[in-house]
């Protein structure tokens, strides 16, 4: 383990952290798929309510997406701003 400076170690772990954070996408993708499937079922059952269902679905998907957007922000801060290197 010669030649690994503390800066390089922290940068590498930051990159791993950024990748781990994006695992939030797993849950959010699952949830959005379930919600869209339910919406398709409702439209098939009641085609006349399509407009209302679509509006509610898009608003709900946007709310669900919030957590993955926060994960994206955290991972971008880890990758591009490198706040942890300054604490060495």
């Amino acid at each position, binding site marked *: 383990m010669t030649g690994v400076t503390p800066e390089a170690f922290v940068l590498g772990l930051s990159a791993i952290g950024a990748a781990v954070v994006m695992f939030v996408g797993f849950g959010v993708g699952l949830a959005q798929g379930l919600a869209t499937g339910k919406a398709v079922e409702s439209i098939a059952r009641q085609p006349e309510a399509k407009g209302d269902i679509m*509006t509610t679905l*898009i608003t709900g998907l*946007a709310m669900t997406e*919030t957590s993955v*957007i*926060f994960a*994206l922000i955290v991972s*971008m801060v880890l990758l591009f701003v490198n706040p942890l290197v300054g604490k060495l």
Partner: protein
Amino acid sequence: MHDIENLGPRIIIWFDSGPLKGLYITETVFWAIIVAVGVTVFALLISRRLERDPKGAQGIAELIVEYAYKIVGSTMGKRNLSFAPFIGTLFLFLLFANALGLLGFRPVTSDLNATFALAALVFILIQYNSIRSRGMKGYLHHFCEPYAIMIPIKILEEFTFPISLSFRLFGNILAGVIIMALVFTGLGYLSEGILHLPIPLLEGGFPLPLNAFFDIFEPILQSFVFSMLTMTFIAKAIASHDDH
């Protein structure tokens, strides 16, 4: 195209001396002003000579206004139609501000300052309408419903809404900007460094579907979501008063 090493908006105008020393204008501020002035001039030019039978640009303007009133009426109820001009303006501004990537410029909303300013505006609007419809006493009282012990959670809830609203728009648009920059850099490396093409041929056609998604579909969707959430939360702040 955008530089991957430096993700922030570029500073294009700065003052080295004089009374404005230290002040600088980034490209997103510049484009925000241009979009705002452009939308205003469009509205003024069209509303100057209104005709009974709309044709040309007046038809488009009437379509936009009609649609804004329809959406506000169906989401917030017929009593709150007075919010339609604000929501329509917000939607138009966000639409053009998000879609600037189509022309190769940096979208205004890929700057956190822009989205946070808009979310702060919405936050003030929500609180003002909440106080106006409930009265000061009712406004303070609604924080301790249903139980007084939930006051911290209620206050936290009020403040997380604008933060999540601004980060949602910012994150979506910035993700598009980053992916487009990565694709263009990769294609440029491929066509110049490996294939040695005399003209950057690969950058011509391949990014087109991505452009259509990130610069046409995503801006429309995100401006719709932003105005939709604004409408829902303003309506919630007003409507819960009538239930009691």
